[in-house]
């Protein structure tokens, strides 16, 4: 079959970095194609070139058999290529219909034909099997629904090829199923889809063919039917990954470091009456890793932020070493020896315009102060060097901008920031989100070492294999409540999943209730 898209010999250089070097991608009509690779492999750059957002230094792009040069995102859209980025590009205060037709409103010139716009939008959402009101405002929609609006926009533009960058990373598993159903539907209608993802299980489930990039080069492509997950991982990392997510059994003393009792919080930014946290209680011991599992929106991050003082809560107690703490800000929490590695590295942890050195020491200036006022840069460099070695952080120098490190190394710097503080309790929220597999294993090992050194760790993760790999004990949450806890030895993905969905399945009340 003649491919719909053929990108070949694509080369793209940024100041100081060769992002793509002989990269390529072939997509057939009516297929779902996985674009894979570790972070920094060049996937994002390749997609941006395909979307017309960046120009390649050399290489050719053929679309439907003819050579094309995409000069702008608009140009790419006109040729039938729609790209849905991780950060959506919707206008939150406008209606669904307006977002779908933004820049192409029907109605011949000056006035917008609202009726036609709504009808068209309705037709498209119906084609997707969705129940969305064309005239409702985007702000109130869930992440999954907003994604559907993006897809609807792509369809309204008569796209032939839809590129989706990490489409499932913020979705619950039910929402993922729905997305996949729609993807298959679009495929049946003859559209091609490119999935960029880190989740290999999903690739095996939904994709027809794959392309793997490594260090900006095309290293393999073929049919999903002919390869295994291990085979893909081998292509991605260029080596065998053995004992991926292996668990290490540890002895844990019985002294409780942190106890959380009856945490309640009502109301979030969107809904004043929403139950965010309801009677959340748990405890974590010295040297223990407590896993927290739950679907997106289960209240795990909210729990972490409440304990850390980042968000307010209505009632409840946080007790450390038998003493009740009064935490009203992250500053208070840090003073008591609690650290938080937040879920969104770029938005919540990193100072992208600053050097690695300055990022790493940000929470522990106390350790390197001179006369209570000045930063002792010599001591600071020594401290940064110590953690560079300990955590095996790969960087050109301490003065390198953190923005230029890979995701895995950025995450190590974030971990080091808290280690430098010598915390008693460390909360890690999605510690390996968006980092490549090699770095994931390294981060897991770091968590083990930290626990070994006596830190009590609360590890929140949406990836069940990860929860199972790192935890000694696991609590599950659903809709702001703790729905159960279980020792790791007794847990499987299936048991955790049923605990996480417990309140949703009230008929199975006797199932998986462990406390």
């Amino acid at each position, binding site marked *: 079959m003649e491919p719909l898209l053929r990108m070949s010999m694509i080369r793209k250089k940024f100041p100081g970095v060769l992002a793509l070097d002989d990269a390529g991608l072939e997509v057939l009509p009516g297929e779902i194609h996985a674009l894979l690779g570790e972070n920094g492999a060049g996937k994002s750059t390749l997609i941006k070139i395909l979307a017309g957002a960046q120009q390649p230094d050399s290489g050719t792009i053929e679309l439907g058999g003819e050579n094309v040069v995409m000069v702008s995102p608009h140009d790419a859209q006109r040729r039938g290529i729609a790209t849905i980025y991780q950060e959506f590009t919707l206008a939150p205060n406008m209606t669904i219909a307006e977002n779908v037709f933004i820049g192409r409103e029907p109605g011949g010139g000056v006035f917008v034909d609202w009726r036609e716009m709504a009808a068209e939008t309705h037709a498209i959402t119906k084609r997707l099997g969705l129940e969305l009101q064309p005239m409702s405002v985007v702000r109130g929609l869930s992440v999954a629904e907003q994604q559907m609006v993006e897809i609807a926009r792509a369809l309204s533009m008569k796209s032939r090829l839809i590129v989706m960058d990490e489409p499932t990373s913020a979705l619950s598993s039910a929402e993922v199923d729905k997305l996949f159903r729609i993807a298959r539907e679009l495929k049946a209608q003859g559209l091609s889809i490119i999935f960029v993802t880190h989740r290999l299980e999903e690739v095996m489930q939904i994709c027809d063919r794959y392309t793997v990039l490594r260090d900006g080069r095309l290293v393999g492509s073929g049919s999903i039917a002919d390869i295994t997950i291990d085979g893909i991982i081998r292509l991605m990392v260029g080596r065998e990954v053995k004992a991926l997510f292996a668990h290490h059994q540890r002895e844990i003393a019985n002294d409780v470091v942190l106890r959380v009792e009856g945490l309640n919080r009502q109301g979030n930014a969107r809904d004043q009456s929403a139950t965010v946290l309801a009677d959340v209680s748990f405890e974590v011991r010295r040297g223990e890793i407590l896993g927290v599992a739950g679907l997106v929106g289960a209240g795990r991050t909210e729990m972490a932020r409440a304990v850390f003082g*980042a968000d307010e809560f209505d009632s409840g107690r946080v007790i450390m070493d038998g003493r009740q703490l009064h935490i009203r800000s992250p500053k208070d929490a840090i*003073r008591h020896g609690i650290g938080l590695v937040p879920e969104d590295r770029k938005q*919540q942890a990193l100072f992208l315009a600053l050097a690695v050195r300055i990022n790493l020491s*940000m*929470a522990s200036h106390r350790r390197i102060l001179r006369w209570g*006022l*000045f*930063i002792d840069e010599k001591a600071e460099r020594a401290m940064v060097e110590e953690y560079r070695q300990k955590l095996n952080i790969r960087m050109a120098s301490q003065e390198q*901008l953190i923005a230029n490190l890979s995701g895995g190394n950025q995450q190590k710097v974030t971990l080091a920031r808290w280690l430098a503080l010598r915390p008693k309790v460390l909360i890690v929220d999605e510690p390996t989100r968006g980092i490549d597999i090699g770095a994931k294993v390294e981060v897991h090992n770091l968590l083990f070492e930290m626990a070994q050194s006596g830190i009590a760790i609360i590890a929140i993760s949406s990836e069940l294999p990860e929860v199972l790999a790192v935890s000694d004990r696991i609590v599950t949450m659903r809709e702001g409540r703790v729905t159960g806890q279980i020792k790791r030895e007794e847990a499987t993905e299936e048991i955790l999943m049923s605990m996480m969905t417990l309140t949703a399945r009230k008929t199975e009340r006797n199932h998986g209730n462990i406390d």
Partner: protein
Amino acid sequence: METLTEHSHSGAQPRTRPDLFGFLARFAPLIFLIVLMGGFAIFEPRFLTPLNLFNILRQVSIYGLLAVGMTFVILTAGIDLSIGSLVAFAGLVAAAVSKGGLSNRFNVGAGEEAASYGWYLAALAAIGVGVAGGFLQGFAITRLKVPPFVVTLGGMSAWRGAALLFAAGGPISGFEPNFVWIGQGRIFDQVPVPVVIFLAFAVLAHVILRYTRYGRQIYAVGGNPEAARLSGLNVRAVTTSVYVIMGFFAGLGAFVLDARLNSAEAVAGTGYELTVIASVVIGGTSLFGGLGTIFGTVIGTILIGVLLNGLVLMNVSSYVQQIIIGIIIVLAVAFDTFAKSRRRLG
């Protein structure tokens, strides 16, 4: 691709990969200044005389003091439009204090009897008014959560009104000689006193931003306030403090301006905010926050001074000068936006 160096251990700072664009972005203001000075020197021989160069520095020293304060504010991604008005108000209060009240505002001899302490009480008054005004605005920004642009736009109007009210329509002039010396005197008969004050406080500000914990916190809050908060920084206090610092420099600037003009009036400082913000932005400080240096601000300030001085020497009208300043601000911000998009790609 990865170049692992071990120099970092020995304390040397190896630069990351050579990057022409980064180099240009870093030194663009300095290069532009040198080119500009060279240009003027060719067309106008009077330009490169020591007398003229010291004159330029003296002319920019009050803008410079304000620009140093403004650098703190802009580093936190804030802005302060009220400084021109605050300068007028603080200047009037200081003048009244040095003259022992408003009743003898035109009495040239008045204050002579208080000569031994008049000038430093005036300085304290000016700085006191500036700091209090800055704190009020910082408070409104952090506690009432009103955007800096709006708060200081309100301040721009309110301080001007306060100045007009205080002056009751007329200037206050004729200060004691010690006070006037601060604005008009020269050290070693060469270096104007305002220039010394400007450069001394620039050095102090540089040390604070570059070497202290507080300086780090300013960059952190400007670069990513949420990450700063989650790193245990008191974002509110840091944000408030930069407006207090701005107020301090507005007060200091008002004091030096009084001394230089030997007079204070309610319309003093009109339009200063534009020139000062231009100096800071041209000096490479990003309006998006978290990026910039005092060194850049000093260069930016001098650059504007050289530009205006050169244009005057070349008989370009002051109306045209305003047009040129306006265009330069827009170009400097355009450059910053472009540099920001480049950084994101890297």
